[in-house]
């Protein structure tokens, strides 16, 4: 089976490290970006199979980054999972409106994250 590549976009080193630890032991290749703008650039350059996108980030937030990804032919079909401390309905709705495929809340639950990642990747 091909190893899937996942782009992690978060300004928190703690979250990036957590996500990397959870995903790497399940044979996913991981690349990272520290904000939304870098996330869009890395998505174009790396063509990941999936993106985990934080919401609140400097330079460009996750919603805007997701909208940008959906506007580009190269990246419009890449599934995006929003990762946020905000679990409120309004925040979730904003995420879906920007084009994300799914949503997970922090603190990250490893089992939930893996289930959603696998679902988005059709595994």
């Amino acid at each position, binding site marked *: 089976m091909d190893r899937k590549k996942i782009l992690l976009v978060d300004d928190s080193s703690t979250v990036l490290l957590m996500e990397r630890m959870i995903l790497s032991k399940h044979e996913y290749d991981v690349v990272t970006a520290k904000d939304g703008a870098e996330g869009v650039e890395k998505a174009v350059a790396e063509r990941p199979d999936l993106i985990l996108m934080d919401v609140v980030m400097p330079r460009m937030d996750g919603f805007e980054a997701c909208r940008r990804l959906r506007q580009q032919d190269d990246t419009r079909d890449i599934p995006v999972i929003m990762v946020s401390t905000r679990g409120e309905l309004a925040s979730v709705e904003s995420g879906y409106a920007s084009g994300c495929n799914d949503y997970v809340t922090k603190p990250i639950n*490893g089992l939930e994250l893996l289930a959603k990642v696998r679902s988005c990747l059709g595994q």
Partner: protein
Amino acid sequence: MADHPRSDRPAATPAGAGQDLQKVSEHLREVISSLRSEQERLASDVRPAGSARGAPGGAGDAGELERRRLASELALAREAVAHANEERDRLRARVEELETEHRVLSDDYVAAQARATELAQLFVALERLHGGRSRADVVAAVQEIVINVIGSEELALFERRGEVLGLLKAFGVDPGPIHAIPLGQGVIGRTGASGATWIAGRDASAPGDPELSACIPLRAGDETVGALAIWRLLGHKPVLDEQDHAVFDLLSAHAGLALQLRAPEGGALDA
């Protein structure tokens, strides 16, 4: 008379012999006719009697054979059904075994995954606390751990300055009222003085604070050098669990030490 056959009967004239032959012939015809009639009568007697009684050799035999064949087939079918029922019961038992096994494996997987997440959290916390080069890095690491690992956006970090806990960093709460807390005063002051972790709802005997979720002493060796207070948890985080307690233990043992190792000599920590 040597050419005539010997006979005990008196010799007959040719005319008389012809009449005798005719009589014999007629008698034989009668006998044959009688035998044929008898044969037909017997035959007609045998047919209906045989079919009514199932006598061997008749249609009754065929019926008996058919009955026996059907009985034999029924016995075989019953045997097959009994065997199928046994097989079904065996398969049901095996399915139940497999379902139980599946549940156990699923539970084990969930437990292992939870344990893996807990270990990842502890590793990440340790890495972040000791990976920073400055006090600001350590403070930022504590804040990120509380927000992203514990699940609260209301926290304050204190360091001990003589008999008070001085505020190092406040996030999501008003720093004014907690700028300096005397040791022994309130939950935070008592944590700084006693060096014991306080968790809301866990220690009913200790006086609490309805706003606080937890207060963790920060230690460097045996000495309590500060405290970390955590107020409201995130809306989707219902309670603090065992994983959180493990992270608290790690923060207690390592955050204070990490700060101490990066503290400017005799200087206060930056707020």
